């Protein structure tokens, strides 16, 4: 019993600072809580005296006024202190929630691609939402219920024992059952809720899919199939709900029953004691009130343990992320390094993805000097994107080194390194924000002219200006949805706006039609004739405009040269692209 408790406490260690920072607030809150408990126990005392006075006929209207005034005053104080503790202790929990979430978020931002490759977005979201909520519950309601339950429980039992030890013993017979039941059932309930929630998510996903794929369903006249899928997902949810309801239907009535069995015991034995004159009628009444006061702490004890357990599990899961050491970090020495040209040298680089046996890159040697445009060709899975991801240190190579202007990239501060590289990814990720913010990301030093120039270069300016709100148009589900090609052009614009030393285009023009692509690349290459450009594409027209072409296959560089010599030499490149040239097909239609 002792060991798990210590372990649980250890899980909450990251919250220590929050407790220290809020110690006065917490102390005052707990003080108020104790005051409330004390005052609550006074009410039955007054009641007892009133009833006794009435029984023995010594009560007068004057005395009654005193008693009723006493109850009113005690209650007023209870209300005041209850307000204070709620504000202090629960407010603390809300604060913990905010700080912990900020901390988690900022830590998550430092983690590298390898973390995001092995962790689902949904899982991270669950940490930030559900787990933090569970920690908040444990540190707010959990703390309160624990203190409250122990204090008021102990005190009420004390008063009861004072009235009659034997009656107390009898009336507490159901107590262990209540605690046990609360514990078992709250666990069962939360498991049930989880299952319901899961089946609901699955239902949601099924419905989403049915609507997202409606054209397929309709065109193949498979409405009945889709409907059946939704129906069965719905039925699973219904079944889970009904299963949960069985637990719920039993829990609360059973709780009430057990507490009321205490009442039955009091009537049976307490009544007997009252008749025999061992206790007064007032004692009898007060006893019933104390028993009522005990109900909550008894239920809470079972509930609180679960609350702490859940909180501890959640805290452990959060800690797992917080303890995740960013595998890609800035060098110790954060002094800026002189980078002015943008020469890239890749030396003997190898890379293998975790849990894969085949290396994604093996012994890659490549150098690209400033002012050159290099194109990388190869099939899907040949290692092109992996190689490119190593340059801005989205991942670090297993062995070998990458140098920019002769500096090992691990020695360059991460921010500086990434700022000198413009990387346009395959999938154009656009944020649900205005077009302007998608380009500037809050940087105020970017002028209107720069924005316009970048948009024009990406051939996106006129389309933006046609929108009623122009640059202030909000994108995303709640705003304007861009087509794939539009997203890619915006992604190009937001990258070239910073005029980076090194530009990497990772097959990021695939959804733009050939003619527009030509125009964009022409302008880019002319504009950037002094800088370094690396382009990956499947389109021959794109590849052909590079100064030199590197062909990759199975993680290795197999051919290098300019486009004419490669087509002529009958190697992999010519095999891949000859047919495309012969048919005059550029992968993209005539418009």
């Amino acid at each position, binding site marked *: 019993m002792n060991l798990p408790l210590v372990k649980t406490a250890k899980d909450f260690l990251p919250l220590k600072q929050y407790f220290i920072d809020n110690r006065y607030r917490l102390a005052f809150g707990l003080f108020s809580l104790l005051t409330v408990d004390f005052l609550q126990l006074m*009410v039955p005392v007054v*009641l007892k005296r*009133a*009833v006794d006075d*009435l*029984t023995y006929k010594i009560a007068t*209207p004057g005395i*009654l006024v005193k008693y009723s005034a006493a*109850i009113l005053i005690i*209650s007023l104080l*209870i*209300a005041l202190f209850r307000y204070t503790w*709620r504000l202090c202790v*629960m407010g603390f929990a809300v604060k913990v929630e905010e700080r912990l979430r*900020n901390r988690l978020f*900022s830590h*998550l931002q430092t983690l*590298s*691609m390898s973390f995001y490759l092995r962790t689902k*977005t949904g899982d991270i*979201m669950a940490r930030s*939402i559900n787990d933090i909520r569970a920690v908040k519950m444990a540190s707010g309601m959990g703390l309160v219920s624990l203190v409250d339950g122990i204090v008021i429980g102990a005190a009420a039992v004390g008063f009861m024992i004072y009235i009659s030890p034997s009656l107390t013993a009898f009336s507490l017979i159901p107590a262990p059952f209540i605690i046990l039941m609360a514990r078992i059932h709250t666990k069962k309930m939360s498991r049930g809720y989880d299952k319901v929630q899961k089946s609901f998510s699955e239902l*949601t996903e*099924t419905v*989403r*899919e049915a609507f997202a*794929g409606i*054209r397929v369903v*309709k*065109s193949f006249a*498979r409405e009945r199939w*889709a*409907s059946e899928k939704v*129906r069965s997902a719905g*039925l699973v949810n219904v079944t889970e709900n*009904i299963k949960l309801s069985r637990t*719920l*239907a039993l829990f609360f*009535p059973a709780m*009430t029953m057990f507490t009321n069995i205490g009442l*039955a015991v009091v*009537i049976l034995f307490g*009544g007997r004691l009252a*008749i*025999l004159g061992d206790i007064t*009628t007032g004692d009898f009444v007060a006893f*019933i009130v104390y028993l009522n006061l005990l109900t909550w702490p008894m239920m809470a004890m079972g509930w609180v343990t679960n609350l702490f357990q859940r909180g501890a599990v959640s805290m452990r899961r959060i800690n797992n992320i917080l303890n995740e050491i960013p595998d890609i970090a800035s060098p110790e020495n954060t002094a800026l390094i002189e980078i002015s040209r943008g020469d890239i040298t890749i030396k003997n680089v190898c890379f293998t993805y975790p849990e894969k046996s085949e290396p994604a890159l093996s012994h890659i040697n490549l150098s690209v000097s400033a002012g050159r445009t290099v194109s990388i060709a*190869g099939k899907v899975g040949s290692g092109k994107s992996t190689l490119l991801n190593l340059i801005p240190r*989205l991942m670090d190579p297993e062995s070998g080194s990458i140098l920019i202007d002769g500096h090992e990239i691990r020695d360059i501060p991460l921010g500086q390194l*990434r700022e000198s590289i413009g990387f346009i990814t395959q999938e154009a*990720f656009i944020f*649900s924000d205005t077009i302007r913010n998608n380009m500037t*990301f809050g*940087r105020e030093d970017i002028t209107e002219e720069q924005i316009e120039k970048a948009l024009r270069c990406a051939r996106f300016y006129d389309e933006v200006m046609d929108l009623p709100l122009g640059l202030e148009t909000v994108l995303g589900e709640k705003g304007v949805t861009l087509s794939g090609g539009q997203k890619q052009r915006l992604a190009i614009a937001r990258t070239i706006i910073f005029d980076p030393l090194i530009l990497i285009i990772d097959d990021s023009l695939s959804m733009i039609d050939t003619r527009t692509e030509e125009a964009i690349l022409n302008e880019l290459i002319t504009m950037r004739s002094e800088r370094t450009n690396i382009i990956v594409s499947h389109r021959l027209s794109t590849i052909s405009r590079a100064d030199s072409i590197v062909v990759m296959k199975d993680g290795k560089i197999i051919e290098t040269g300019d486009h004419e010599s490669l087509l002529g030499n009958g190697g992999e490149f010519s095999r891949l692209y000859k047919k*495309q040239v012969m*048919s005059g*097909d550029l*992968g993209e*239609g005539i*418009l």
Partner: protein
Amino acid sequence: MHGDFGYMEEGKLGKPYDMKLLKRLGEYALPYWKGICLALILAIAVTLTGLVLPYLSKVAIDRYILSSWQELRLDNPDYKYALKFKNSYPDILTFSENGESAFFHKRHTKDIDPAVLHSCREEGAISEKTYYLVNKEKLKQLESAPKPETGPVTLSDGRIALPKSFIDSLPKDTVLKVRASDFSGLVKVGVFLIFILLVSLGLNYLDYYLLECIGQNIMQDVRMKLFDHIQSRALSFINKNPVGRLVTRVTNDIENLNEMFKSVLITIFKDIFILAGIIAILLFLNWKLALISFTLLPVIFIFTLFFSRLMRNAFRTMREKVSKLNAFQQEQFAGMRIIQLLTREKYQMKIFSGFNHENYLAGMHQLKLSAVVVPVMELLSAAGVSLIIWYGGGKVISDQLSLGSLVAFISYIQMFFRPIREISEKYNTMQSAMASSERIFEFMDNGEEISEPESDADIKDKRGKIEFKNVCFSYEKGRPVLNDVSFTINPGEMVAVVGATGAGKTTIVNLIERFYDPDEGAVFLDDVDVRLLKKEDLRSRISLVMQDVFLFSGDLKENISLGKESITPEKIKEAAEEANARWFIDKLPDEFNQNMSEGGSTLSAGERQLLSFSRALAYDTDILILDEATSSVDPETERLIQDAINRMTSSRTTLVVAHRLSTIKKADSIIVMGNGRIIEQGNHEQLMAKKGRYYRLNLFRESYGEP
């Protein structure tokens, strides 16, 4: 995270109830009326058992614990009121053998007219002295005890009245024997109480379980009705609504409805019943004290109404903030690579902590309100108790209220607050449920439908000829997409449609599939207007291969057959073979059983294309519509796609929305679209010779095509 897709429709909140909506909801509940009636009866029974409990403690106190009698003296002719008493309440009196006095149980005192009681006391017919009636046999037990000061009075029923003070002074074991009937009474009350508790437990369980079953079933009925309704609507309607919104209707809004069924049926009904029950019992116990304690009611109601509105708003703001925070995080984690590449971490952190702080403030605001509500409610309850002690205590002094009733009163008043609080909390649920049901019915009532023909025509000669005759169409009024378009695709022919984005290529596909109907003109399949064909008949003759391939969760097999039973596993394999899809399917760990929700995302664009070809081939229709994908794939896969296309199109009537020159060249006829009209038509050679738009378009590509 649970499927609101960033759509939190909190803006519009309905009235807590709307008879019209409730009536429509009632229609769905109608099939379950028997169960609902049973549940209501159970709820009433549960409430009754709950109300019995405090009353039982009153019975225990008044009848058994404080059991005593008072004497009404009738031996003095001056006692006028005593006579009146005797005549008015003969039932409660037990006369002495000599008729000089009569005894009545203390618990009957409150039934006696206070004026009579008072006058009897004034004239001395009733004294404060209390007695206890003992059976003759029991008297033997008392022989050893010292005799009471006043002699015992023998009653007409043979019992003997002894002063209560005498009984109280007896040793405990004697009391046990003398008051045996009181003890057995207590046992009876205790046993009855436990019995009631068990009954209540059973009823409660049944009631809750039954209502959950009914609610869940009703919900599933509404959900399927709504889903089938939306699914059968025209695409124009479905496309107008973001998928997130449609999903919310079918999932979250329905869930809200369920909440309402449960809270209306379970809680509110029960709560109202409990309130009514408590009011009735209080009035029965002592109507004056009851009315006095009811003076608190308006205060409670006003406070509850006022604060529940504030709380509602606070909760709504909180939900809004949370969903904003979630939407932001969702995006952040999905796009982390971009953020790191653009080194925008600080900017994102600033926005995030802003949202997080807003969430904190909303939480604090809600907390401050709730920190007021609970204590004030408790305070009001305490005020009720103190009122009862003050006023009710006075009544006890003047014997107009028994002590047990006073205690019961206190218990009932404390019970009073829970239902009131619950009802005000349910107001919330009701409101959002009403808003949800309004949105659900709005969907059920609206939505254009592509109508089925009244009598479906039958095509005798299924050759696969498609014809457009003077078709005009616009998605929005005043913005024509197709303008007087006419063409014919003869059986077995392949026609390519080319043109710029927005030229109306996809619209042609939509009209053939009858996703839309033309504004003017008509589309014919085998010389029959498609509007005269049953939609299912029409669509089952056409296979549509779309640009962006949509994969359903479920295994790969199911993604090819789309659950159609007539498509056997062998047929699926053949189709995949024919579509050149076998090579990558065989490489998947579970091959045809590969789960697509897990593995689907790993398929490349080209592989997805081939999969959708398999789908079309498995359905083996005589007409094929192919919307070529624009995105580029690596040359190897490209070759497989081309090969599969050649095979598919050779034996079918085919319409291709084409992007690849190789496809276009093979077409029997090419339709060049521009601004919703057909600009040119003919085969590749003809169009090239014509040196029109098609020629110019190709000139451009030729200039880059050759090395």
